[in-house]
């Protein structure tokens, strides 16, 4: 048995361009896969950042005569507190509000003297509230309250991030498919160009399983090796891309972060499994064709 295993490693020629073709294409595909993966991960992260920054906050603006404002504020806060989908609601302190307005009004305006509307910052839960219902309740209970959920800012950003992630995922699937196809084809090229090896092995009474195993082992090892090198190179290239500084919060840096770096480690074993499946299928198909 051990002699059989060792000879099965021997019977397939080690050299041959088609073998290098497998290493190279697996490596190239792994390289591209790492980039696509990084794009997908970054896009997902981006979408999350944008959601967190924009989608889960809203503002309620309340204008009312000065004598009613405190009462109405309490009513609005109560309404918000009892609305499912709202995590918290807090009145923005007058100083903070003044700061926000300074950009438009300048520091000299006597804000204290003005009948400024109250601003209430609302944090939504991930599911979010029933916005239409909330608006109706607010207009019934506090006619001066206006609910603003930043929709016009949020939608395009979320859509863009989603589209980017979709493109990256489609690319990943494509790369996987193309890799399998190339490896299957390279396997069948390797087998076809070794027609003499197969004929000789058949002649001396070797079983199909033995012949297939020898080829499949070699092809999937090469594919795994290629993918390993390709992944390593891609990770090196990614690490070399300068990351954005700390003050950038709207678009995070391209690449992996933290535990995300472990994700591409899946690529080489995955490539090996793909190669194993592709070459196994091809090998038995070719073997059935040769007499």
């Amino acid at each position: 048995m051990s002699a059989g295993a060792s000879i099965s490693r021997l019977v397939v020629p080690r050299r041959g361009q088609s073998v290098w073709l497998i290493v190279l294409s697996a490596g190239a595909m792994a390289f591209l896969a790492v980039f696509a993966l990084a794009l997908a991960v970054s896009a997902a992260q981006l979408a999350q950042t944008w959601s967190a920054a924009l989608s889960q906050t809203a503002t309620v603006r309340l204008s009312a005569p000065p004598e009613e404002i405190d009462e109405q504020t309490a009513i609005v806060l109560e309404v918000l507190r009892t609305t499912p989908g709202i995590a918290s609601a807090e009145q923005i302190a007058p100083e903070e509000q003044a700061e926000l307005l300074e950009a438009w009004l300048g520091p000299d305006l006597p804000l204290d003297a003005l009948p400024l509307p109250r601003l209430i910052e609302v944090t939504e839960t991930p599911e979010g509230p029933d916005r239409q219902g909330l608006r109706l309740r607010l207009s019934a209970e506090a006619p001066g309250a206006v609910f603003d959920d930043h929709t016009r800012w949020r939608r395009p950003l979320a859509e863009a991030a989603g589209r980017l992630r979709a493109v990256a995922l489609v690319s990943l699937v494509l790369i996987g498919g193309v890799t399998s196809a190339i490896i299957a084809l390279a396997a069948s090229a390797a087998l076809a160009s070794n027609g003499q090896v197969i004929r000789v092995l058949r002649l001396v009474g070797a079983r199909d399983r033995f012949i297939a195993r020898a080829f499949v082992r070699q092809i999937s090892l090469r594919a795994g090796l290629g993918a390993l090198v390709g992944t390593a190179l891609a990770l090196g290239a990614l690490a070399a891309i300068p990351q954005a500084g700390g003050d950038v919060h709207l678009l995070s840096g391209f690449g992996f972060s933290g535990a995300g770096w472990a994700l591409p480690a899946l690529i080489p074993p995955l490539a090996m499994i793909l190669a194993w499946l592709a070459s196994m299928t091809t090998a038995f198909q070719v073997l059935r064709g040769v007499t």
Partner: protein
Amino acid sequence: MIAFEDVSHDYGGGRLFGDVSIKLEQGSFHFLTGPSGAGKSTFLKLCYGELTPSAGKVLVMNKDLQGLSRNDLAGMRQRIGVVHQDCQFLDHLSVEQNVALPLSATGRSVPDSDVADLLSWVGLASHAEALPPTLSGGERQRAALARAVISAPNMLLADEPTGNLDWDMSQRLMSLMIELNRMGTAILIATHDLQLIRFAKSQINARVLRIARRKLQVAGADL
């Protein structure tokens, strides 16, 4: 050993031979002759299942070749030694490893001394480490014969095994095959070398089959 029952064969074009019924018994010695292109190699390929006949049945060790699975066919081939007309080898393995292949590729152990003995008998002792592409035409044929007999098969099928060999070496290989036959191996040799047939007949009881005019005939003592 091998039995043909009403076997005909053609390659889609004209028929090569028809209605062949013949039995090659265990321990028998046969020559197969006929003009170039008559179908000698085809006959041999039918014997070990590389081809299936257009009509009729080929039985090897009492089993119909057509009913055999790929695995059973492989198992059967382990008991038949074949020398192809165009000797093919694994070009990246040494002559030694190629000769040992029928054993090593089927998980059987390879006694080194057997391989060395056989190689020196066919005059290739000094080429044991050589790669097949560096062998001369005659050396390839000798290596192919060594590979065919290393596993002590029950039957040896040899297609023009001496086509590229000088007379001395041809005699030497023929002696080896006669020796194997005496030890019980059935032998079938396709050849056009009448001198070789005469040499064998002088030493052993061999029958001559001849393919001519689309028929397989058993030749008399007229050679």
